[in-house]
């Protein structure tokens, strides 16, 4: 499967960015690369883990390194959709409604503890994620370009939460779990040899990001590779459920980004295999990790002949 330990090649243009984020989130190169792939593929990212694993730190570092404007919203149960999207405030002196944009109008929205908000608020956010705009009282307001949502979610928290429904989970390109750091990284953490998220230098401007997006979309996918992705989604659809066409698109887009991170201009089977757990796991288990069992994505990989 995906070799998680070694990354022999990194695109020279992108390695400073990865290193910069890697100095903030120690010992999580795989997750950092996944997060990068997600953003390069133009998708929204869901980071899920226990509290205190550095979810928000990663999110903030990502936003800063791309030098994108970002806002952070802590989702709570009493958060209203209007708290996100903004409201039409009635100006009594002019007797007109004036649109007051909410925190959604930013390039990167850090949605902390997204599963704590009410389903209604979540769906307002997800509409913005899907369409890139917000509709209020019949008027639609376009969100800035690019628009990313990096949401975090507490995996232990089950009480008083509203888990994201399947259709809305599908909007997230990837779900990444951070997991415990290894001993060496934690030691560095304790010794304080890490840089805080707020100190992450902006290394890329908006124009370069756009270029990267184009470059990512132009990565070459061979027939064999497309067939592999098709076989994967076909295998997932045997039995109940299965991956949506959006999921297969997402899989290929993420694989393209992963290939670009590896400094290649074509996509190989390993790229797909590397991003597959992050891309499909949350779509297959509908938001509830299977726990100790073999991950569904691993099973899926074993069902498709990858010798091509």
């Amino acid at each position, binding site marked *: 499967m995906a070799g998680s330990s070694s990354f022999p090649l990194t695109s020279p243009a992108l390695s400073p960015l990865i290193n910069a984020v890697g100095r903030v989130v120690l010992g999580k190169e795989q997750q950092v690369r996944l997060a990068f792939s997600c953003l390069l593929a133009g998708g929204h990212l869901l980071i899920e883990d226990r509290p205190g694993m550095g979810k928000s730190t990663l999110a903030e570092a990502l936003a800063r390194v791309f030098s994108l404007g970002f806002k952070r919203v802590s989702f709570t*149960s*009493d958060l*209203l959709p*209007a*708290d996100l999207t903004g*409201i*039409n*405030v*009635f100006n*009594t002196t002019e*007797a007109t*409604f004036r649109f*007051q944009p*909410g925190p959604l109008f930013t390039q990167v929205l850090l949605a902390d503890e997204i599963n704590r908000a*009410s389903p*209604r608020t979540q769906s307002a956010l997800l509409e913005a994620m899907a369409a890139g705009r917000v509709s209020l009282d019949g008027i639609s307001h376009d969100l800035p370009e690019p628009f990313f949502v990096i949401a975090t979610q507490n995996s232990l928290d089950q009480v008083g939460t509203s*888990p994201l*429904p399947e259709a809305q989970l599908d909007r997230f390109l990837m779900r990444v779990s951070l997991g415990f750091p290894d001993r060496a990284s934690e030691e560095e953490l304790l010794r304080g040899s890490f840089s805080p998220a707020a100190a992450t230098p902006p290394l890329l401007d908006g124009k370069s990001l756009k270029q990267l997006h184009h470059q990512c979309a132009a990565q070459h996918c061979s027939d064999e590779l497309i067939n592999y992705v098709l076989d994967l989604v076909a*295998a997932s659809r*045997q*039995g*109940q*459920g299965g991956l949506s066409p959006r999921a297969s698109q997402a899989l290929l887009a993420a694989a393209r980004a992963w290939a670009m991170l590896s400094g290649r201009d074509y996509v190989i089977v390993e790229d797909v295999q590397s991003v597959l757990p992050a891309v499909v796991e949350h779509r297959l*288990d*509908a*938001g*509830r990790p*299977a726990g100790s069992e073999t991950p569904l994505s691993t*099973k899926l990989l*074993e*069902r*498709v*002949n*990858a*010798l*091509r």
Partner: protein
Amino acid sequence: MRSAELTLGLRNLYIIPSRFGALWLGSAALLLLVAIQTTSNSTLLLAFVMLALLLLAMFLTHDTLQGLCLRCGEPSPTFAAESATYPLLIESRHRRPPLRLRFRKASDSAHVQLSAGVTLVGLSWRPEHRGWQQPPQLQIETIAPLGLFICWTRWNPQTPQLIWPRRRRGPVLEQHPPRWRDGLDEWNDLRPVREGERPAVVDWAGVAKGRPLQAKVFTVPDDVERMLKPAAGVPIEQAREHLADRIWTLQQRGERYGLRLQSKTLSPGRGLQHRNACLEALATE
């Protein structure tokens, strides 16, 4: 003979000429006759080439299947009376011409073209009864490459597949009848605006209509929990089918439910795992 794994070889492969093979042989014989009558070398050679190809095809057709290794996959549960997919893992050392797999009683068959490595093939069949069911006898056959011979084997895969009761709409006993939340209303009351109130809760529409500034009062709809039980007065098998259907729809809606059967009780919950546990209980208890 049931087994979890089958390697195709001389012991379990059968081969006979197909109808086309018989026609081919007849044609070769006819050409032989023509060649003798007209003393034509070319026709004679063609007749012999056709005979030689027939013999060669016997080995080639056999080779198409020989050495394949079939293993049961992990079948995912399905409802009875619906098309179920039984996964088979087929391992091949090299690329092979197409072959056909089907369950003997099933109508449709799967045509697969194997490349080197392990390939997963889903075979459909139609289970009629709930519980852990073994699939029918499997037939693997091929006529490749020339269609002159048909080579086949039969196998009973060992791994059973969990079949849930079939889905059928019908009455189900619910201990807490559903209280439908009024999803249309965002808020259910208004109160005067306090100092420091967020603008999001202010009823701006009311302000526009000339009313004083008021704040909306929201209710957080609490989850409705229900325990499902077989309906009284319905045969138990049929009641199971109704329950299966109800569980399916509740899961689709994302609601919480529990299940109480005579021998087993599952406390309310939601999610795929919970649904699967409930349906498995319905199928096997």
